[in-house]
């Protein structure tokens, strides 16, 4: 009887042992995906060799790979098998790429509407991607190391292009700067002002464009697009002649590579001197001539009693800059347009109003899509900038009016 009870008292050991055995099973070697029977090989931004299964089963966008960026750089919506989570879909809906490729936005099969649709876990993301079974995954946020260790075809668009160069592969950053003359102020910038090599947007735009073109099997598509980009930058430099400028407005702009500001004939107030902290007093000390907002409206900013002493507020030179966060967060198409927009604000006397036409032409030449006047207004934040000095040149029909004025 006592022995019987003693045995019962030890029954708790059974689940303990079972759980321990299952836990120990995790120490087994990881499973490994075999190489596909037929494949082509590409090298990603981090120098990793990826074997893409053939026949091509499509591209899946893994964690932090923005659908708008994929669409802009590849122009291949038909190759997508998985575009992302509902939050990614929401972001795309606010982006101009959803006008150009509405089929991607509207196709439910491309978006995770199944289990874990709102997950932020990379592990659940891997599981979702396994369910979609693409030939290659793009992981711009850096796919988990685990994915590579089990032999899955994860293509990292970030990483170190220098590693590729050491492997004897073409330089992903060639043509960076598009021949822009060196910034004479650069040697005087405070320590840490320029973040590593990220001086021009081309630093990340050109590698992204070249890698995406390689990924879809058409590397030859990248260079003509890069050349077209550089031509607009070079044309602007020729028209603006920054070296001959006698006045360069001091501006406050965040969220852009530092090289954009001098290219547009302006001076970044942040580059003048180091002021510690990031509180409201800092902006009052810097007191820029112009302020470019990333969010919110200039009118609201100007109404704020904290900013009444700022020169930019007194002269109504606060602007909502286009192309950030919504409508056009990506860059190959839009960055040259933004550069012109900034230059026209800073130096209207030197440049003819051409931003609307340039935007329309860029989208037409890149995607064969004609932007409507309303869409251009949205991209350029015409409504938000209505009260700001000089922004009227971006409104519809401005050119006609000015021509009439000059003819008078």
């Amino acid at each position, binding site marked *: 009887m006592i022995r019987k009870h003693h045995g019962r008292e030890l029954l*708790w050991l059974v689940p303990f042992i079972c759980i321990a055995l*299952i836990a120990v099973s*995790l120490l087994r070697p990881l499973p*490994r995906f075999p190489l596909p029977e037929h494949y082509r090989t590409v090298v990603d931004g981090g120098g990793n060799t990826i074997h893409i299964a053939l026949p091509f089963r499509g591209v899946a966008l893994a964690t932090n790979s923005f659908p708008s960026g994929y669409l802009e750089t590849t122009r291949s919506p038909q190759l997508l098998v998985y575009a992302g989570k509902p939050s990614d879909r929401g972001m795309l809906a606010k982006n101009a790429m959803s006008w150009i490729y509405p089929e991607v936005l509207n196709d439910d099969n491309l978006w*995770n509407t199944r289990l874990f649709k*709102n997950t932020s*876990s990379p*592990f659940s993301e891997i599981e*979702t991607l396994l369910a979609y079974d693409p030939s290659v995954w793009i992981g711009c946020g850096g796919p988990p190391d685990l994915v590579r260790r089990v032999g899955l075809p994860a293509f990292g668009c970030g990483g170190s292009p220098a590693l590729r160069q050491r492997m004897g592969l073409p330089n992903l950053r060639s043509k960076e700067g598009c021949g822009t003359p060196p910034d004479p102020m650069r040697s005087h910038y405070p320590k840490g002002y320029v973040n590593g090599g990220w001086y021009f947007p081309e630093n990340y735009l050109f590698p992204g464009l070249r890698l995406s073109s390689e990924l879809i099997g058409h590397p030859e598509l990248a260079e003509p697009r890069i050349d077209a980009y550089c031509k607009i930058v070079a044309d602007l430099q020729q028209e603006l002649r920054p070296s001959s400028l006698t006045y360069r407005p001091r501006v406050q702009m965040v969220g852009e590579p530092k090289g954009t500001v001098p290219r547009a004939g302006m001076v970044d107030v942040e580059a003048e001197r180091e002021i510690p902290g990031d509180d409201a007093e800092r902006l009052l000390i810097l007191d820029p001539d112009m302020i470019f907002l990333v969010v919110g409206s200039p009118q609201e900013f100007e109404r704020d009693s904290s900013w009444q002493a700022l020169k930019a507020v007194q002269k109504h030179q606060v602007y909502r800059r286009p192309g950030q966060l919504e409508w056009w967060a990506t860059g190959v198409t839009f960055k040259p347009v933004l550069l012109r927009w900034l230059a026209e604000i800073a130096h209207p006397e030197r440049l003819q109003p051409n931003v609307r036409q340039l935007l329309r032409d860029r989208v037409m030449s890149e995607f064969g899509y004609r932007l409507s006047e309303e869409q251009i207004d949205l991209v350029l934040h015409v409504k938000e900038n209505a009260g700001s000095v000089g922004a009227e040149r971006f409104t519809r029909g401005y050119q006609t009016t000015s021509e009439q004025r000059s003819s008078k």
Partner: protein
Amino acid sequence: MTEAIMADPAISQAKTKTAWTLEYGWAIPLLLGVGVLVAILASLCIGAYPMSFAQAARIVMHLAWPGPLPANPPWTVKEITVVQIIRLPRVLLVTLAGLGLGISGTALQGMMRNPLVGPDIVGVSSGAAFGGVLAMLWDFPPVGIVGLAFCGGMLAMACTFGLAKLSHAGTDSMITILAGVFVGAFFLALIDLIKHLANDAQLPSMVFWLLGTFVGADARKVAMIAIPTLGGGALLMTLRWRLNLLSLGDLDAKSLGMNVSVLRWAILALVSLIVASQVAVSGVVGWVGLVVPHCARMLVGPDHRRLLPTAGLLGALFVLGLDDFTRAVMKAEIPVGVLTALIGTPVVCFLLWKSQGKGWGRE
């Protein structure tokens, strides 16, 4: 008089229940053990990649069975990847966290003879969380996080009991709980200070971790929680007879020849180790250690020989169920710590109202 008491239907019903518990109470932990194993396998079927129960069971059986895997396995590489790398670590992490919290809460309540005690009430969770965030601030490796979390948990526990002793309250008093609340609040303030000192890269991970989450479970984390939980839990199981004596009160326990002080510190150290390992891998998952022992007590009564395993297994089922609920029904990674608090509070209120002290009577 005696006949009148015997004739009372409530007392008669209670006697029948006690007799049933004595005879068959051992079967409840066994059933719960089977339930936990089935729940582990069932949880492996929840996810974006389709997986049948039979296939999940087959893979787990082969993985857990010593020896090499079959040369021509009846599963695909994708299926074993999903089970071995993604789902099984998470499910085990959740199970072990629930198991550890259930056992710890029961041991604490039994030791302190107080049903309001739980690892988060006496400050051990806050102390462990403080140790964890301190280790994250100093960029310690994962083992360092567990180590500091353990030290933090022990320190908080020592502070709580030290404070209670200073007020000459012993352990059988509301003072101990008050001391735990004070110590917990102090460590929470320290956590806030560390969050303030953390840089932009450290802060989001600290905040998400503190909410109690099982995101990012892997084999390393499972090892980090499995060894202290299963080892510490097994040691606590061997002490469950002594816990019964301890719950009679210090004087009675001493008169029965027990070294109360040594036993109490041994239990505290084991509870701290288990809670610290849980907090280190998945953040603060509150209320489990408080709610689950109550439910277990309703099932098997206050005898720790059955109560301790029942509470552990019930805790595992509870947390596993919540995690499955967030993944399968809510389809999002809602931190489990938030859900346990949301569910735990009304459950405790309901239990207090329903039981009205039953199972904790001094009879």
